[in-house]
Every structure is written in C-alpha cells, then in structure tokens.
C-alpha cells in the first residue's frame, strides 16, 4: 500500500517535470517546418516594426498605385466608396471621437502606423490579397498617411521610419499601459468593462 502510494507520487512528480519542461509527448505528430516555410507564412508586423520587410516607398510612389488598385473601392482621394470605407482622414477626425457619431479613419483613429502596413499587406486589394510587393505596401501606407496630413509627400517609409511615425490618436486608448492589458481581474474589470 505504502509502496504504491510512493510509486504514484513518483509518477506525479515525473508528470509535473514533463509539463514544466514542455518536452514533446506525442511522437511523429506534426513536423518541423523549414525556415523558408516559416518565412513564407509569417506575415505579422509588430508595433515596434518587428517583421517589416526590406523595401521603401513614398506618398509620391503610392499615388499611381492607389489610383490603379485601391480607388475603385476607396474613392479617388481615399474618401470612401460603396465598397471600401474612407481611408483618408487626419487630426480633425479625432475631434469627432467625443460625439455620438465618431469617425474612425486611419489618420484620425488608428494608433499605430505599422497596423496600416500589416493590414494592406495581409488583406488588400480585396480578392487579390498578398499580391502587393513590400515597396508597393510602403508606398500605399505613405500615400494614406500623407493624405491624412501625418507625413510629408517625400517622406520615405521603410523598416526603420515606419514604426517611428506618430499617429494623432496614439494616446486615445485605455488602459494606456501594455502591462495592464492581459489581466482583467487585476485591472478591476466589472462585467467585461474595465476602468
């Protein structure tokens, strides 16, 4: 009896160690992807610019690309159309945020310029996503930010400069601190609403 208790205790300890070390438990289920596979799949862009590819573009480069590939849905000046929402809008839009009809444009609402690159690259143009080159995505991002009065027409966006673009509504979100984001209960959230 005692022996079996000891034995099961040992198994428990062993199991705990396995869990801690996160050793694989299931043989020949799943395989190791190649570096090239991961590279091809990994399209996430972090707010600090992690994942941004080499390449560059300006608003001037972006204007003809926008006219050819985006204007059909988003309007010639990015003012929005029947299919695509308005994508151009600047600091004036942030003033609508305290009204009953807030306007959430890229320039007036989005807190990170990196999200603009990320979304254009992963989702646009509609039904042809993934076809734009890094240079084209940088240029389109620059075009939208220039039209929104956030950067200059000749500003070059690339891996280094894009994450540094200051968006007007960057401080418009609560909680402001990243470290307060994950744990709702510690943050004193009630019924899904956090202070």
């Amino acid at each position: 009896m005692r022996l079996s208790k000891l034995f099961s205790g040992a198994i428990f300890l062993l199991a705990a160690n396995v869990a801690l070390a996160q050793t694989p438990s299931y043989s020949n289920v799943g395989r190791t992807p190649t570096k090239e596979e991961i590279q091809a799949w990994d399209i996430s862009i972090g707010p600090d610019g992690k994942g941004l590819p080499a390449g560059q573009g300006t608003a001037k480069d972006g204007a003809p690309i926008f006219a050819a590939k985006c204007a059909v849905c988003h309007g010639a000046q990015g003012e929005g159309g029947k299919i695509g929402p308005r994508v151009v809008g600047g600091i004036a839009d942030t003033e609508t945020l305290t009204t009953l009809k807030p306007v959430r444009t890229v320039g007036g609402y989005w807190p990170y310029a990196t999200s603009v690159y990320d979304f254009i690259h992963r989702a646009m143009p509609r039904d042809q996503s993934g076809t734009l080159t890094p240079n084209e995505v940088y240029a389109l991002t620059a075009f939208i930010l220039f039209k929104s009065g956030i950067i200059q027409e000749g500003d070059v966006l690339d891996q280094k400069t894009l994450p540094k673009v200051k968006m007007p509504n960057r401080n418009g979100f609560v909680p402001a601190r990243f470290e307060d984001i994950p744990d709702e209960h510690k943050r004193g959230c009630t019924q899904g609403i956090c202070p």
Partner: protein
Amino acid sequence: MNPKQTDRRRFLKNGAALAGLAVGASASALPAAAEPALEKVDELHLYGERSHYVTAVRNGSINNPERRLKDEPVAFGLRTPLQDSVGMITPSSLHFTISHGFEPPDIDPKEHHLLIHGMVDRPLIFSVDEIKRLPFVTRFHFVECHGNSSPRGPGGDARIAANATPQETHGFTSCSQWTGVLLSTLLKEAGVQKTATWIIAEGADEPKHSKSIPIGKAWDDALVAYGQNGEPVRPEQGFPLRLIVPGWQGINNVKWLRRIDLVDEPYMAMMETSRYPSMRLDGKSRWFEFELGPKSVITRPAGGYKMPGPGFHEITGLAWSGAGAVKRVEVSTDGGRTWKDAQLHDPIARKAHTRFSSPWTWDGKETILLSRCTDDQSTVQPTIAQVAKLWNADIDFLLKTQQVVGDFNAIQPWKVNADGSVQNALV
C-alpha cells in the same frame, strides 16, 4: 437483403411499373428504370432535412460588396433565430456568422495546416489529420460577438425597434458542442519560451484575420476545434480548424486557423485597434477587453410573439457568462417589482448557454417580462442604468451613440400588451 428492404424494393418496382403504364412506356424498359429510381429514393435520406413546416432561418446579410454596390441594405452579419430555439445548442446551420464582408474560404482539409512558431523551442506544423490524432476534449461553449445586444450595431437600428425579436436583439450569440485539441497541448509540444506573453492567432480567410491574445488564456482553456455538434466545423464557422476562446469576445475565436505566433506583446492588428475598441464619452477607447459579462434573454414569450390569450404560459430563455457557469436566473413578470428563481436545465456548462424556464399564468393585463443572470463568480447581470454608470454616461448616450457599445449586457425588457402582442421595451 433483409425482408424490409425486399418489401421496399418490391413496392418501388411496382410503383415504377404503375408510373410506366401511366405514360405508356414499354414493359421491357421497366427493370432498368427501377434501379436508378431506388438509388434516388435512398439518396434523399442520406443527409437528413428538417420538416418543410419548420422555417426558422438566420436573418441579416454578410455585408457583401455586391449588395453595397446595388445600394441594398447590409447588416453586419447573420443572426441566430433565438426565438425558435429549444435546449441550449444552436444548430450549426443557424449559428450566427460575422466575417466582415467576406465569404467563407473553400478549404480542402488535406491542404490545410496549422503552424506554431515564434518564441518556441520547436516550431511545428500540423496537418488536420495530425491534429485529430492528438488527445481531444469535447466542451459546450457559446461564441458571442462583443457587439451582441448593443443598442446600435452590429445589428443597427433593428435592435432598438419596438418590433425587434430576440434574433434582432441578441442573435449574435450561439452555442455549440466543440471538439478539438486544447491549445495548451500544442504549446507544450512546441515548448513555449519564457519570453512569450501573447499569441497572434491568424486565419486563412481572404483578409487573414489576426488577433492578439494573452498567453494565459492559451494555457487555460482555448482550444483548436475541428468538431461542432457531432460533425466537422462548418465552413462558415471555420472549417477545417478554428480557435475557440471560451467566454471571450467573438473576434478572438479565429476561424480557418492556420497560424499561431508566440510573441512578447500585442501586435496591434487592424480589428483589435481600429474596429473593436469601444468609444467612451471622453473620446478614449476601451481596447483589449476580452471576457463577456453575465447576460440572459427571454426567448419566449418575447418580441414578435403573440400570446394566445390569458392563462398558463411557460417562460423560457437563455443565460450565459464569459466568466464561468450560470449559477442563477431570476425572472420578473411585473416589470422588476418581484423576482422568482427560474429552473436551470441541464447541461449547465461553463461559458455556455444555459436554458432556463419559469411557469407563468398571464392575467391578460399589460406587463413587462425581465430575466436576470448571476454567474458562478456571483456577478449579477446589470440594469441599463448600472451599465450607464460603468460607462460614466447616461442611458441616453447608450441608446443614441452610433457606435457599438461593446460588452453591453443590460437586462432585456419585453412588454406584453393587453392584446397579447409582445414588444421590445429597450427602445
């Protein structure tokens, strides 16, 4: 061949013979004609259909551009007809769907893979068949849009119309029995590094929806589901693999899941930074809210229903909470002056719809029906006044803002008129 089949075959052959005679076909053609006819009859029964007398369907639209071009009204998605529901499971065919204006992708499960990479010791790629070889769990969970039951949006003004049914007021929630592999099982296989604090989950749909999720939830109860209500997850629900993030805003439950990236901060994806934060009166937006609060709705008698007359009528509805199991549901038949505990029906599962009922004898007079849910964390579903207080706003703001009021879980009032008609009283 068993006797029953023989009988049936004979019956069908005779039927075919009669039909043949009726159109004057030659007798020699009969045997050949009878065989395909038999297969056709069997085919009809291979995949069952509901009675043609049953007509409950989703309403809304998928917000597709074709409709926009024609200036046709578009809704945010398709809502579940809760007023016609029984039990706590939503038929997969009636599960609500929101896909931000895109059609579900047509994915061959043999071609689909799930990649786990980033801050892990062993990046791994799984085929769908490999996922199915791993230890699995089967659990009841609701999926609910964070804008469900919000005064405006995602349903638009339909939600606050006097003639709104539970489908218009609360139809962006559905509950299924999900089968899949716990995400923690996959994470252990990959060996998550200590620096990883968030996961980025990504779908294989056209806009490749991506969502940042704190890693604690990934270790807790998130699962990679391939089964829904006894069959493969439906295409509109993420076939062949989807993430289920129990009790959290629907947007986290990434459909057509193809990639999990282990990272050390939220990646500020489009939906989580620009569409899903909720606006406050002071212009600040609440972002990265996850857990949905306790909520309930009476589904019958409710908006759009007509009471047959005074007398007995069992009240029934659904209650749920993102924090855990439903502990208690109270029902009021006098506008909130008195409350009575409703009966909760099994199964009562964590982060799942729970069916409740309460006997009622209507006296034929005008009244208001209410239901109030308390979850196992003892959190009580609030009144609209209490929600307004949390928002530091007045009720008028909640009703008039053109934005989605995220996580809106106020008590839903239904007004029973003297003529027996039932109306939405949150207008």
